[in-house]
């Protein structure tokens, strides 16, 4: 009888540890209204309350994920869902390269993998509007886009090489208590494929009017915001199965009342 008791106790502690381990810390984001760089008809966007991961998903957490769901291991993943760069720097399906740190954000993952990771935890990827809403904050203000220091910081990061191997939490904590939105890696968003800019100048000239219906309706509201413009440009050039060295992700969750 005692053994059984002890065993259940162990199992419970183990389960608790495991779940506590996998569920990364989240913070509440109070919704609001703002004008993003590319909005619906360049108008205001309203964001509902939601929760966001404090940090990007780490190598460690993603390693646990592929151990639990082997279909996302490098050799198992379907080509429809990830290109040849998927987890390319890992030594094997389940082992990081020694140059990669466990606490660094996971990169070289496709949109499909990121989306499934979040869904497996009862979460989802952030929409572009949600991500940008949280990311326009600096340490003290919810919207710091007008500040020179805010834009300088981001552009300074774009010039720094190999920040993807820095540990999570190594950049600043913003107004919402969220870390690393700028300074470590770029992040996948749920609807990245809603950015209708073509990355190729030859395409941009006249063909685009045919390629995109109503594309004239979406344009940059503030071209001064060069840093954000870069983010939208990269989203516009991505395909969901691409895996990039400086592209990671984090999850968000709707607040259920």
């Amino acid at each position: 009888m005692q053994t059984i008791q002890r065993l259940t106790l162990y199992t419970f502690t183990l389960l608790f540890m495991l779940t506590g381990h996998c569920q990364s810390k989240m913070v509440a984001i109070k919704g609001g209204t703002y004008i993003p760089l590319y909005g619906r008809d360049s108008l205001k966007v309203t964001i509902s309350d939601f929760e966001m991961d404090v940090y990007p998903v780490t190598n460690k957490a993603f390693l646990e994920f592929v151990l639990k769901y082997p279909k996302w291991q490098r050799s198992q993943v379907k080509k429809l869902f990830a290109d040849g760069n998927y987890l390319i720097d890992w030594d094997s399906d389940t082992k990081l390269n020694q140059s990669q740190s466990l606490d660094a954000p996971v990169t070289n993952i496709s949109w499909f993998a990121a989306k499934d990771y979040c869904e497996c935890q009862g979460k989802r990827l952030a929409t572009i509007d949600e991500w940008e809403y949280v990311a326009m904050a600096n340490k003290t203000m919810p919207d710091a886009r007008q500040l020179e220091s805010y834009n300088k910081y981001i552009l300074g990061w774009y010039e720094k090489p190999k920040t993807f191997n820095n540990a999570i939490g190594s950049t600043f904590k913003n107004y919402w208590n969220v870390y690393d939105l700028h300074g470590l890696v770029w992040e996948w968003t749920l609807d990245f494929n809603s950015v209708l800019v073509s990355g190729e100048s030859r395409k941009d000239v006249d063909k685009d009017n045919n390629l995109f219906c109503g594309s004239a309706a979406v344009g940059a509201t503030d071209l001064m915001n060069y840093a954000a413009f870069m983010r939208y440009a990269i989203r516009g050039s991505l395909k969901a199965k691409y895996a990039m060295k400086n592209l990671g992700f984090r999850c968000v969750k709707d607040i259920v009342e």
Partner: protein
Amino acid sequence: MKTLKSILSLFIVALSFTSCHFSDSKKSNNDLVLYQCPMKCEGDKTFDHAGNCSVCKMDLKALAETSLTELNHNGISDESIFNLTSTWHTEENEIIQLEDLKGKTLVMVMIYTTCKAACPRLVADMRNIEAKIPKENMKDLRFILVSIDPETDTPDRLKAFAKENFMDGKQWTFLQGTQSSVREFANVLAVKYKQISPMDFSHSNIISVFNSGGELIHQQEGLGVDNKETLQAIHDLINKN
């Protein structure tokens, strides 16, 4: 305790055996390696042995991915859209998975029925393609129109749209998904779209052709473009089947 140990060791032996077997079978799959000039001096020409390019003298490079596409247990390849497991409603209110369309050549486009700008032209492009396919080939073909506005485009609405546009034949299928499955499907097709008002979307105008195994063969971009290549792709696929 002893029995437990022996059972465990038996397991380990069994495991190692299966893993050995697995790597063996993989090897035989990779036997067929093709080589190609890294500069593609002779276009997509491939060679079945290593050597030098006859034009630029560079070493030919092995092509890892040209080995025969590996099929999984369902008989669909890694790159097949049938790997998507989402469920869809048709205009006849049937519930299907994409895999149910297996065995037919598929011509797919993403539209929404309240669209006033590009969609009518895109739908016309689809009809033009359909009109040029010989009747006797129609049984091997499906034209799929996927709605990017699953909230508005219910099966009833899609059915009405099909009737209005004379696309109510057996060869036409309209699909309603969910926000999430439509986003995923668009990503597989590399179609971009954005809701710009409750009734309107911006979206890329792409018609995609899939073979009977669900692999993407050809994409036609733009409106009212010459559909010769698309027709050729469909023609080739039908004759291959």
